[in-house]
Every structure is written in structure tokens, then in C-alpha cells.
């Protein structure tokens, strides 16, 4: 017998041979709008049920508290503003940490999300390797990646190999149900910073997350330099060629983000999110307005230009026109 192709067959009479008689039963929902759009994930493995806990009040980090920003972030990723107020509350510090969970099991991903949110992290969940690669390639600024190895479409190891060159310092915690030492070694060799075997303890996961973030949080030096421009974070001081530059808190925040990403384009959306804590807002030109203020102060008359506009994208701080 020839095995039929797996093609759509809207006309059953014509689908591999003839139907043996035909009785048609349709059981359609009476009211489609009754269930949420996530209903495909409900049922016995309902993530809604899993993540149903009401999170405690989470302090939002608004533009107004940017002057006392949260934690430091690695120099090459430029996610969070510099840590100036070392007495900032723990929850406020954690709130600005963004975690990406890539886990194919919806229930587990939602459970971890709820727990991390409960600890004041901002969390995004993706259930598929290809989707995760896409999200990471879109210049998203995550502070930590929690990655399951056994993923559909692109597996965890392949995903690590793909993203590592672009995110060399992104803390990466691998979750795996493969308990063999070789599997964990393999994951660590391919780019994981840490490895946790399922079923793991929640407190151990939290401790490892904290350790990875802590390990990664000391990498911003107090002083950043681009050409003859110097920014001192602790002192909140900016100088160029011995000339003191007075910046407002917002302008300082913009320049600090630019310094952390020196030599790389920074999108308007990134600046909007990092400095104003706002999502993408295409209608606003607030970034351009403030960037002009910064540029006017940084690139003085007769000085070499350090701030460059990247048309249609954002800005770049670099020494020289190349």
C-alpha cells in the first residue's frame, strides 16, 4: 500500500482513497469569547493556574527615580543604569534585571516566571529555540538567560553556539534533565556559565541566579573613556580634554548608556527604555531632543565629533569618523 502524503485534505472524499461512508459531527464551542487567548495552554497543565499567584506590589522604576538607579550591568550589554546609590533597596535593584527564560514546557516556564517576578525580576518566557534566537538577535537587553537544552526547532546547545559570539558576557544558566556529567560539561563547554539538573530546588535556582548576576555586576568600572571624553560614575562627573561638562541627570543617563556601548550603535528604543523606562514609542522625539542637548555639550566647537547619528536607528559614541 502506498502511504499517502501528509497534505491538507479538506475534502475527505478525495483523501487517500474513498471514505467508508460519511457521518459528520461538529462540536464547536458555543461562545468563543469566553476563554482567554491563552486557552491553548490551559487544561491539566494550565500555566495560568501555575502562574496564578498574585504578585506582591512591585516598585516600578520610573524616570523620576533614575537618578538613583538600580544595579550595574556588564559593560558590553548596556541594560541598566549605573549603580550610584549603593543603599538602594534590594527589590528596586532586582526589578531592573531582565531575565529571559527559554523553556519548552509551558507550565514550568510560567512557574519559574511567577517565582522570579515574585523576587522582582522582569521576566520574559519563550518556548521555542528559534523564537529565542530571534528575540536575542533583535538587540534585546537581557541580564540573564535561563535556557533549557531540550527545545523544539533549535536545541539549547545550538542556540548557545549561535548567540554566544554576540553576547559573550550574557550570564547563561542552563537547565537540563540530562543528569550525566558529560552532558553538563558539554553545556559548559558550549557557552553555559552554570548548569542545573532537573528536578532542581527552587532555592538553589534562585541562589545561582543571584550568583550569576552578582558575578556579572562588578564589571562596569567607575571610569569610562572614549577618546578624550571621561565619565566618572561615582562622582557623576564628565570631562572632555580637561573641560568639565555639566549635564542634567537625564543627559548624564543618556551619556552613561552611550559610554557603556561605545563603538556600537544604540537604538532610540534602547535609550527610551533605559533612560525613561518606557517601551517603544515611535511617536515621541524625546530621545532626539535630549541627544541634541548631550551632543551640544559633549562635542564643543573645534572638538572632534564623538556622537554620531545612525540614520533610522539611533546613535553611536565613538572616537573618530570611521
Amino acid at each position: 500500500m502506498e502511504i499517502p502524503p501528509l497534505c491538507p485534505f479538506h475534502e475527505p472524499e478525495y483523501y487517500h482513497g474513498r471514505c467508508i461512508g460519511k457521518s459528520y459531527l461538529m462540536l464547536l464551542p458555543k461562545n468563543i469569547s469566553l476563554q482567554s487567548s491563552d486557552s491553548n495552554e490551559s487544561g491539566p497543565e494550565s500555566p495560568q493556574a501555575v502562574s496564578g499567584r498574585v504578585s506582591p506590589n512591585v516598585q516600578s522604576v520610573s524616570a523620576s527615580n533614575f537618578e538613583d538607579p538600580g544595579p550595574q550591568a556588564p559593560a558590553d550589554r548596556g541594560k541598566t543604569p549605573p549603580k550610584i546609590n549603593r543603599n538602594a533597596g534590594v527589590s528596586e535593584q532586582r526589578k531592573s534585571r531582565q531575565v529571559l527564560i527559554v523553556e519548552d514546557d509551558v507550565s514550568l516556564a510560567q512557574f519559574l516566571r511567577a517565582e522570579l517576578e515574585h523576587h522582582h525580576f522582569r521576566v520574559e518566557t519563550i518556548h521555542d529555540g528559534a523564537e529565542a534566537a530571534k528575540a536575542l538577535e533583535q538587540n534585546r537587553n537581557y541580564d540573564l538567560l535561563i535556557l533549557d537544552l531540550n527545545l523544539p526547532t533549535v536545541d539549547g546547545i545550538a542556540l548557545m553556539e549561535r548567540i554566544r559570539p554576540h553576547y559573550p558576557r550574557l550570564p547563561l544558566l542552563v537547565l537540563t534533565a540530562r543528569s550525566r556529567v558529560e552532558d553538563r560539561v558539554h553545556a559548559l563547554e558550549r557557552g553555559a556559565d552554570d548548569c542545573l539538573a532537573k528536578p532542581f530546588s527552587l532555592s538553589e535556582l534562585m541562589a545561582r541566579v543571584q550568583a550569576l548576576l552578582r558575578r556579572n555586576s562588578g564589571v562596569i568600572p567607575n571610569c569610562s573613556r572614549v577618546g578624550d571624553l571621561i565619565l566618572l560614575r561615582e562622582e557623576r562627573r564628565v570631562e572632555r580634554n580637561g573641560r568639565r561638562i555639566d549635564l542634567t541627570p537625564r543627559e548624564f543617563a543618556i551619556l552613561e548608556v552611550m559610554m557603556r556601548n561605545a563603538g556600537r550603535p544604540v537604538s532610540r528604543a534602547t535609550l527610551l527604555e533605559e533612560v525613561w523606562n518606557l517601551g517603544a514609542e515611535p511617536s515621541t522625539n524625546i530621545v532626539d531632543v535630549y541627544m541634541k542637548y548631550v551632543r551640544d555639550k559633549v562635542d564643543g566647537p573645534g572638538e572632534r565629533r564623538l556622537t554620531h547619528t545612525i540614520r533610522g536607528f539611533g546613535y553611536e559614541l565613538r572616537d573618530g569618523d570611521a
Partner: protein
Amino acid sequence: MLSPMIATCEDTCVDSGSVRKFHDELMNGLHAVAQPLTILRAAMEMLSRSGAPGIDRKHYLEISTEQVVRACDLFSAVQDLVASNVTKAQHASFDLGEVLEPVIEAHAARMQARGVGLAVVRPEPWQKVTGDADRTEQAFRAMLNTALSLASHGDVIEIYTSRAAEFAEITVKHPQRHGKGLNSSDRLSLSLAEVNIVSQLGKYRCAPDPFCCWFALPIEKPVQPERGPFQVN
């Protein structure tokens, strides 16, 4: 945990490819089981901190209950996977309708509760096929479970039955593209479906997106009246 199972399979599986496949399927099955166990362990951990403020015991108890049920289902699937790999299937005649109808009925209610439609094209009458009734039921149930896990509210899952040559064919289809890969639970279900069909000399095919799973079992040959040596036409 795997070694004794693999050893048993080595005795019954015909080639090293089958052993390797069984090994991969078991690994995937254990991976699937690890998910609810992880949630369960975490939930129990939170419950054990009974004195700590802000712990919503009811929430974690509900989670624990759900995940215990889920873990049991997955363990049962792994157990069935092992059993189907290491024991021989029966080859007896059975009515396909008697095996599949109760499964369709049970799933119709579950689907309706989830806002998912079900369209069934039934034969009149159902065919009698040769194979293993229990394995057929298990395979069909696994296919429907996978289709349901991939379905969203408002989707319709389709079941078709047809006949081609000497085979009765069953197709379970979720025609909408869901854009998701199969997770380890889905893969476990489909491994179970495949081994249950293939082990009874049936034919099996599956595509993940849009989901379409097809199997065929040999139709029972009608019994020819015996002709004695002195029979006169």
C-alpha cells in the same frame, strides 16, 4: 534507570537502530517527566516554609496537585512506551469503532471544555481490522492528546477514517498552523503512538505543523468458505 530497560529492549529489538531509537524516546520521556517533578519539588519547598510570611499555601497546594497528576500521566506513558517496546503485540481481529469511539467521546467533552471543536468523519460501518486493540486505543489517545495540546481556543481538530486497498486508515489532524514545536510531552505521546502502531504491523506517519498524524491497520480478510475435496459446484 535506563540501562535495564535498554538491556531488555536489546533482547527484543531487531536492530541497533531500534535500540538507539528506543533509547532516545526514553530519554525524551524522562525529560518530559522531569518538568512536573521540578515544579512539584519547588512547590513542596515553598509549602515546607510554612512559617514564612507571604507564602500562599493554597496556590502551591493546587500546583502540587496538578503536577502530581501530570507526572503520573507521564510516568504511565513512559511505562507504556517500555511495555510496547519489550512485549509483543497481539494480532487479533477487532472492531475499530469499538476501540476508537469511546476515545473520541471522551476527548469530545475535554475539547469542548477547552473551546476546541471536533469534526469526525466516521465510516458506516466501522471496519474490522487485525491487530492489537489495546495498542490501537493507546496510540489513538496519544494522537488526540497531542492534537489537543497544540490547539487553541476556536480551533477544530479533525478525525478522518477511510479505506485504501487492504487497510483502514485513521487521520487525526489539526489543520491550523500553530507555529510551535513539539515539547517533550508531545514527543513522548507521539513516540507512544508510533511504537503502538508499528509494533502491530500497522503503518504510521506524523507531521508536526500543521499537526497531522496518520495510521493504517490491515483490514480483516473475510473468511472464505472451506471447500471440501468432494464439494460439487
